[in-house]
C-alpha cells in the first residue's frame, strides 16, 4: 500500500486495510518512443501556438513537423537494433537484456521489425506532406497555424499504433486516431466546397467502416474469448476453423472495415471523391501514410494472427486484389481529372499490395513493406507535382492543365514523368522492383492466376500514366480541344518545400530502382512477430476457449 493510496483512503468509505490496489500493466516505455515523440510533438506544437500568439517565423510549424517526424523515425533505430539483435549501434553498445521483438503495455503493443518499418514509412509520409503543405497554406490564404500539422502528427501516431498493435482493440484505437484526424484534414480547405464535401463523405463512410471493424472485433472476441492477438492465435491452434460461424463472420466484418481504409474494390467508392476534393498535400498523406498504416493493420490481423486460418480469408483477399487491380486500372483510364486518375491508380496499387498480402508468406510480407515504402515516395511526389500545378485555388487538375508543362517547367515535367513511370513499373525505378517482388511472392504462393491478372492490369494502368506524360509533353490541340500554347512567361513557380519534397521522392525512387537491396534487406528483416509478455500474471487475459 503506497503512501498515495493511504492518503486517498482517508476520503473513501472502505477501511484502509481492505484496499486492494489495482496493478497497472507492465510497460516498457522504450518501445513506445516513436509514438511518444509524435504525440508529444503534436501537443507541444498545439500548446506553443496557443501560448505564442505573436507571429511565428515563416514555415515554423512545417519545420517543426519535419523535425518531430525525423526524431520519431530516428528513435526507431535503437529499437530496430534491439529487435534484430545487433550488438552495437554505431558507437554505443546495445544494452538491452533480451534481444528480439518484445511486447509492451501488458502484451497489447508488440514492437517488431514490421511495426518499426511501417513507423518509418509513416514518418516519411508526414515529412513529405509537411514540406508540401507549407507553401500550399500560404498560397491558398489558409490559416498557417499548427492545425494541419498537429492533426497530421496525431494521425501518424494512430498509424504507428496500428502498425505495432498486439491486440484488436489497439488496432481499432489506432484506426480511429488515424481516421478521425484525416477526416478533419480532408475538409481543411475552408474556401472550397469540394473540400468540405469530401470531408463529410469520408467521415460518414469511414465511420461506417470503423463500426463494421469494431463489430467484427466483438464477434471475434465472442468466438475466441480474447481480443489479444496472441491469445487468438493460440485459440486457432486448438479449434477446427470452418465450424465456427461467429469467427468467420467476425473475420469478414474486420476485413470489410480494413478494406475500406485501403480503398480496395468494392469498398473504394469514397476514394476518388475524397482524393479529388481534399487539399492536395493532404491527399499525399492519405495516399501514402494512411494506406501504409491500414495495410500494416491488415497484415497484423490477418497474415500474422490468422495465418493458420488462411483458407478462409485468403480467397476473399484474392478476389479483392483482382477486383482492385482490374477496376482501378480500367476506371482510371476514363477519367479526365488527374487527381481522380491518381485515386484510381492508388486503388490499383492497393490491389497489388493485397496480392502480396494474400501470399501470406514471409516473402509476401517483405514485398508488402517494400511496396509501401516505395509507393509512399512515388505517390507523395506525384501529389506534390499536382499541388504545384493546381495553382491558387487548387482547382486546375484537368488533364488539359498539364498540357505543355514540359515547355514551361521542364524539370517538374521530368520529375512527374519519372514518378509516373515508377508507378507504372518501368525498370530502373523502385516501382519495378515493388511490383516484381509482389508478383514473385504471389507466384511462390501458387497464386498464378492472380499474378497473371496483376501483369495485365499493370499494362492497362501503364496507358493511364503514359496519357498524363504525353499530355505534359504535348502542346496545343491534340485530341480535339483547343488548348492555348503556354509561353515562357507562364512558368509555374515551384516553392522551396515542394521542390525539396518532389526532388527527394525522385531521388529515392531512382535510388531504390538501381539498388533495391538497400531497401529489400530491411524489408525482409521486418517480419511481424507475436511475443508473449514476460510476466504473465499482469495484464494478459487468458483465453477462456469454447
Amino acid at each position: 500500500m503506497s503512501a498515495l493510496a493511504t492518503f486517498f483512503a482517508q476520503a473513501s468509505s472502505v477501511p484502509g486495510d481492505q484496499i486492494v490496489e489495482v496493478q497497472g500493466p507492465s510497460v516498457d516505455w522504450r518501445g513506445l518512443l516513436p509514438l511518444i515523440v509524435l504525440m508529444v510533438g503534436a501537443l507541444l506544437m498545439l500548446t506553443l501556438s496557443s501560448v505564442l500568439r505573436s507571429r511565428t517565423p515563416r514555415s515554423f510549424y512545417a519545420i517543426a513537423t519535419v523535425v518531430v517526424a525525423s526524431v520519431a523515425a530516428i528513435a526507431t533505430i535503437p529499437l530496430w537494433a534491439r529487435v534484430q539483435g545487433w550488438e552495437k549501434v554505431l558507437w554505443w553498445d546495445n544494452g538491452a537484456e533480451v534481444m528480439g521483438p518484445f511486447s509492451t503495455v501488458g502484451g497489447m503493443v508488440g514492437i517488431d521489425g514490421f511495426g518499426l518499418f511501417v513507423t518509418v514509412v509513416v514518418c516519411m509520409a508526414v515529412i513529405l506532406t509537411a514540406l508540401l503543405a507549407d507553401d500550399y497554406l500560404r498560397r491558398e490564404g489558409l490559416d498557417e497555424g499548427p492545425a494541419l500539422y498537429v492533426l497530421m502528427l496525431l494521425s501518424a501516431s494512430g498509424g504507428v499504433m496500428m502498425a505495432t498493435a498486439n491486440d484488436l482493440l489497439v488496432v481499432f484505437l489506432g484506426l480511429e486516431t488515424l481516421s478521425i484526424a484525416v477526416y478533419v484534414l480532408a475538409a481543411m480547405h475552408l474556401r472550397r466546397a469540394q473540400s468540405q464535401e469530401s470531408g463529410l463523405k469520408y467521415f460518414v463512410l469511414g465511420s461506417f467502416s470503423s463500426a463494421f471493424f469494431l463489430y467484427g472485433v466483438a464477434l471475434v472476441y465472442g468466438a475466441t474469448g480474447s481480443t489479444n492477438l496472441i491469445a487468438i492465435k493460440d485459440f486457432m491452434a486448438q479449434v477446427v476453423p470452418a465450424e465456427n460461424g461467429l469467427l468467420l463472420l467476425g473475420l469478414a466484418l474486420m476485413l470489410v472495415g480494413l478494406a475500406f481504409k485501403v480503398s480496395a474494390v468494392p469498398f473504394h467508392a469514397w476514394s476518388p471523391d475524397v482524393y479529388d476534393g481534399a487539399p492536395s498535400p493532404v491527399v499525399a498523406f492519405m495516399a501514402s501514410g494512411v494506406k501504409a498504416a491500414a495495410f500494416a493493420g491488415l497484415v497484423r490481423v490477418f497474415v500474422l494472427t490468422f495465418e493458420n486460418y488462411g483458407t478462409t480469408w485468403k480467397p476473399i483477399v484474392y478476389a479483392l486484389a483482382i477486383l482492385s487491380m482490374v477496376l482501378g486500372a480500367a476506371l482510371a483510364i476514363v477519367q479526365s481529372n488527374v487527381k481522380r486518375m491518381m485515386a484510381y491508380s492508388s486503388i490499383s496499387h492497393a490491389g497489388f499490395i493485397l496480392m502480396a498480402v494474400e501470399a501470406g508468406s514471409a516473402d509476401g510480407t517483405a514485398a508488402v513493406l517494400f511496396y509501401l515504402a516505395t509507393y509512399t515516395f512515388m505517390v507523395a511526389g506525384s501529389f506534390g507535382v499536382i499541388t504545384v500545378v493546381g495553382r491558387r485555388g487548387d482547382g486546375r487538375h484537368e488533364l488539359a492543365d498539364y498540357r505543355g508543362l514540359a515547355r514551361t517547367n521542364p524539370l517538374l515535367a521530368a520529375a512527374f514523368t519519372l514518378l509516373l513511370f515508377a508507378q507504372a513499373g518501368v525498370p530502373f525505378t523502385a516501382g519495378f522492383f515493388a511490383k516484381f517482388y509482389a508478383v514473385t511472392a504471389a507466384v511462390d504462393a501458387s497464386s498464378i492466376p492472380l499474378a497473371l491478372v496483376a501483369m495485365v492490369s499493370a499494362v492497362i494502368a501503364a496507358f493511364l500514366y503514359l496519357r498524363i506524360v504525353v499530355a505534359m509533353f504535348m502542346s496545343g490541340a491534340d485530341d480535339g480541344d483547343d488548348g492555348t500554347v503556354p509561353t515562357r512567361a507562364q512558368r509555374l513557380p515551384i516553392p522551396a518545400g515542394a521542390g525539396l519534397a518532389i526532388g527527394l521522392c525522385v531521388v529515392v525512387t531512382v535510388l531504390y530502382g538501381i539498388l533495391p537491396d538497400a531497401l529489400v534487406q530491411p524489408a525482409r528483416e521486418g517480419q511481424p512477430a507475436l511475443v508473449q509478455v514476460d510476466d504473465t500474471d499482469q495484464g494478459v487475459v487468458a483465453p477462456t476457449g469454447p
Partner: protein
Amino acid sequence: MSEYSDFVRQYLTVAIFAGVGVGLAAGLLGLGRILRPTRPQEQKYLTYESGVDAVGTAWSQSQIRYYVFALMFVIFDVEAVFIFPWATRLEVYGWFGLVAMGSVIVLLALGLLHAWRKGVIRWA
C-alpha cells in the same frame, strides 16, 4: 436448453407489452376516427396561437454559434463520465490511476486552452 427458452419467454412479456401499447393507442385513435363526423372548414386548419390571429411564420432561425458550445460540452461531459468512476475508487488506482487520469485531464485542458486562445469560446 431450458435457460434458453426461459430467456426467450421473458421477451414474450416485452412483446405483449409492446403489442398492448400499440393496440391501445391505435384502438383509441381509430375509434375516434370512426365515430367523429368530418366537416372540413378552412378556419379549422389554421395554426393555433392562443386564439388570436397568427403573426409571422412558424420557422425561426437558431444561432449557429450554439454548435460550438454544444461541441465543447459533449467533449467535457465525456471527460466527466470518465473521471467519476476513477474518483469513487481513487485509492485503489493509486499512482497508476493518478498519472493516467491526470494525462487525460491535461490533454483535454490543452485542447481547451487552444480553443480559448483561438477565440472559439467568444460569444460574439
